[in-house]
Each structure stands twice: as C-alpha cells, then as structure tokens.
C-alpha cells in the first residue's frame, strides 16, 4: 500500500509538490509512482534556470522496467535540482518524499490551489 502525505499537493500524473517558505515549490514523484515503476536506475533532471509550462515534460525517471516522464505540475522556472537523486536513483524508491527531484519558482503560486489534495490523490492512486 503506497503512502500519501497529508501536507503535500499532488497531480493525477503522480507528482507531489510542497510550497516552501521562500515561495519555491519542491517537486518529486509519489510513493505510488515509485512502487509502480519498480527499482529506479536513472534520473534525468532539468537545467537550473529553464522555464517550463504546466504539464510539460521536465524530467525523466527510469526503472529497470520502463522510462517515465515527469511533468511540470505548474508553470515555473527551475531554481535547484537534487543531484543526490540523480546520483542514487534508488533513493527515490527508499523514500519518494525525501528524494525530491527539483524546485520551481512558480509563475503564479495560486496555480497550486488547483492541484489535488491528499484525499483526492489517494483516490487516483487507488484507482490506478
């Protein structure tokens, strides 16, 4: 059974988001996503400074089984990437909420309000 944290926002495409005090948003893939993919062996992160529209492909995670695109949950500019996740992809399997992938400065922080809350995402994950 996969884990969904109450303090995060989610997308139906299995990304999680955390709004930080400095206004940036931390993004990763959910526990459900890592479990579905299986053992991760490769993580490709975006360039710092690059701008992405919402729902654009922004990163790639690959398991032994398959490659999966990670989408920008909201429009924004990349401010930081988690090189540790790229160096040790298995860290995402170990704790998908600790092993974040990148941080964005959102174009419009109110976009976060449109995202799924934990209960809504749990329903998505249960149906998948």
């Amino acid at each position, binding site marked *: 059974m996969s884990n969904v944290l109450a303090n995060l926002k989610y997308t139906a495409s299995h990304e999680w988001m955390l709004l930080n005090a400095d206004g940036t948003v931390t993004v990763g893939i959910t526990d459900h996503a890592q479990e579905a993919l*299986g*053992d991760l*062996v*490769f993580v490709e992160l975006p360039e710092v400074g690059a701008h992405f529209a919402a729902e654009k492909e922004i990163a*790639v995670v*690959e398991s*032994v*089984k398959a*490659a999966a695109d990670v989408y920008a949950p909201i429009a924004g500019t990349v401010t930081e990437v988690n090189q540790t996740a790229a160096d040790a992809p298995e860290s995402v399997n170990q704790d998908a909420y600790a092993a974040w992938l990148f941080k964005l400065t959102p174009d419009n922080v109110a976009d976060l309000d449109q995202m799924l809350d934990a209960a809504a995402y749990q329903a998505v994950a249960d149906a998948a």
Partner: protein
Amino acid sequence: MLKKTVLNAAHRAMNARMVDFGGWDMPVNYGSQIEEHHAVRKDCGMFDVSHMCPVDVVGPDCRPFLSRLVANDVAKLKVAGKALYAAMLNDAGGVIDDLIIYFLTDTRFRIVVNAGTADKDLAWMQAKVAEWKLDVSITQRRDGADNLAIIAVQGPNARARVWQVLPRVKAASEGLKAFFAAEVDQYFIASTGYTGEDGYEIMLPAAEAETVWNQLNAAGVAPCGLGARDTLRLEAGMNLYGQDMDEAVSPLDAGLAWTVSLNTERDFVGKAALLANGQQKQFLGLILLDKGVLRGHQKVMTAHGDGEITSGSFSPTLQQSIALARLPLGVQVGDEVEVDIRGKALKAKVSKPVFARNGKAVI
C-alpha cells in the same frame, strides 16, 4: 478477462506486483526486481512460467515432421532426453516462434512454445501435419484436463534446492548436463533455462504446482517475477520473441544463425528464403558509456549506417545499461556508436551479445 496460471493465488499471497503480460495476469516482481535478479545470479530463484505452452508431439512420423518444421536439425537429437533450441519459420524465412524441442523417444517429443504465440503455433503445426500427410498427433498441455504447470528454478544452488524438495527426482536429474531432460512419473525435469545460470525447468501436474512452489520457497528459493527474468535473459544474451525477432525478421539477422542448419540436404520451411536473402544485419550487444538507459526501438547511429535496439535495460550485474541490437554489416565489436535517446546522441560501445552468465560479467 486476463488468463491466470495455477499459481496466481500463490503470487498474490507473496505480495507480487501483478501485470497484464500479453493477456496473462503475471508477477512482474515481489518487491525488488534487482534483488530477484541477484538472487538468481548468486543463489537461487524461481519463476512461474506456466503461461508457456508444452506441446506433445507423438506418432511414428515425429522425426520427418520436426525435420521439416524447424530451422535447426532434429537429427542432432541422438540421445534420449536431449533438448534442441530451434526457430520455426514461415515461408518467407521470418520467425513464427522460437522453441525448445525435447527428444524423449523416436515417437514422442515435447516442445515448449511461447505464451503469446501458442495458439498460432499450434494452428501452424496442425496445418503442416495435414499438408504433409504425416502420422503425428499434436497436443497442447497448458489448458484443460491433464494440464501442466512450469516452474523454472535457476541459480548456482538451484539443483540442490530442487532435490531437497523433490528428493525422488534426484537420481534421474543429477547427471543431466545442460540442455537435457528426464522424466520421473508425471514430473519432467529439464536442465534448460532463460537466465544464463544452472538450474531446472520443471513441468509438473498443475494440481501439484502450488504445493511445490511453496515448498521451494520454504527451502529458501526466492520467488522472482518476469522483470528479473527479462534482465537475466538480456544479460545472458538470449533472444526474446516479439522483441528481438518476429515474423518479419530472419533468424540470420537476429543472432540465431547458430540454430539454423543450412548445410545438409534437409529441406525445411523457410530454407529457400534464407538461402535467397542471406544475412542482411548482424545481432550484437551494446554497452552504454554515457548515463541513461538503452531501450528497444532506439536508433543506433554507426559508421556503416543506422541500426536499431531490439531489447535494452539496466544490467544489475554490470551496473550499467546494456542492449541487444540489429546493426548494419561492417560494424565491429569494440566500435563506438551513438544511440538516440530522447533526441540526444549518447555514446555506446559495441560488444558481443552476451554480458553475464554463471554469476559473473563476461564482458
């Protein structure tokens, strides 16, 4: 409605992650595909491959039938119990399926064919028996009464664990060299596999499979899913039907020339096409030098033209990405080539299409 093997409930009880595998509800892993992979290379693991289809070929014309049916030559099967890997071709020389033929007696052979191709294979075999007017019966043993399950137990400790659980098969199976089989009552113990490790593939009455599966697990054999089976066979350089070859691909272009016996008078389906077309491509390995993961259908750019990856993944033994690829003639082992991964040209090295066997890297 997905088809289920007789071990379906056992997989679920072991917390398998189940997937739709060509219409079959099968375990892809029981937690970690990589750990299952290492268990087979270093110790012992077991796979439910009951979705594959045993086919019994019985009758006085077994040999003339099989001699024409497949590209390898059953005349090589001289000792009872010996197995032969072969490709069954269409008239154009494309591969209908790859299969293993076990020689039991001159009037009784057993073939094991792939799950997804079983129906078309059986129809093709029946049609050829009728066309050639031979006295042979073809009986599938996967479904219905009298059906068989198949459990593959693979790894350096596989034989010992099997004997621990099934002591009565030890005498008949301990002397088996690679690619042989022995029958003990309704149990068919074959020293074949799809991992590059020692071990057995056991065909047994379906009704007894769950008990044996659980006893093997209690004896320390790790349940392994189709995910680990795929990375193990990829490292061992073994072809997967539907990815590395299919009806549009010649065995000569898929690294299967060693299974095609062209140098005798014997005629077989597809022979004329193979002789007319010759070899057009070569089947080689790739090791990715940059970071990333090689996957099927990625384009390979070489000094001799473009090729294509047919199977690719991450190799748990080598800790880097490997692939099998169909490349232009002229490419040499050791050449550096480029692979198009999401629009980026990443560097890879051409290798022989075998990466790891018997517990270690062979690259």
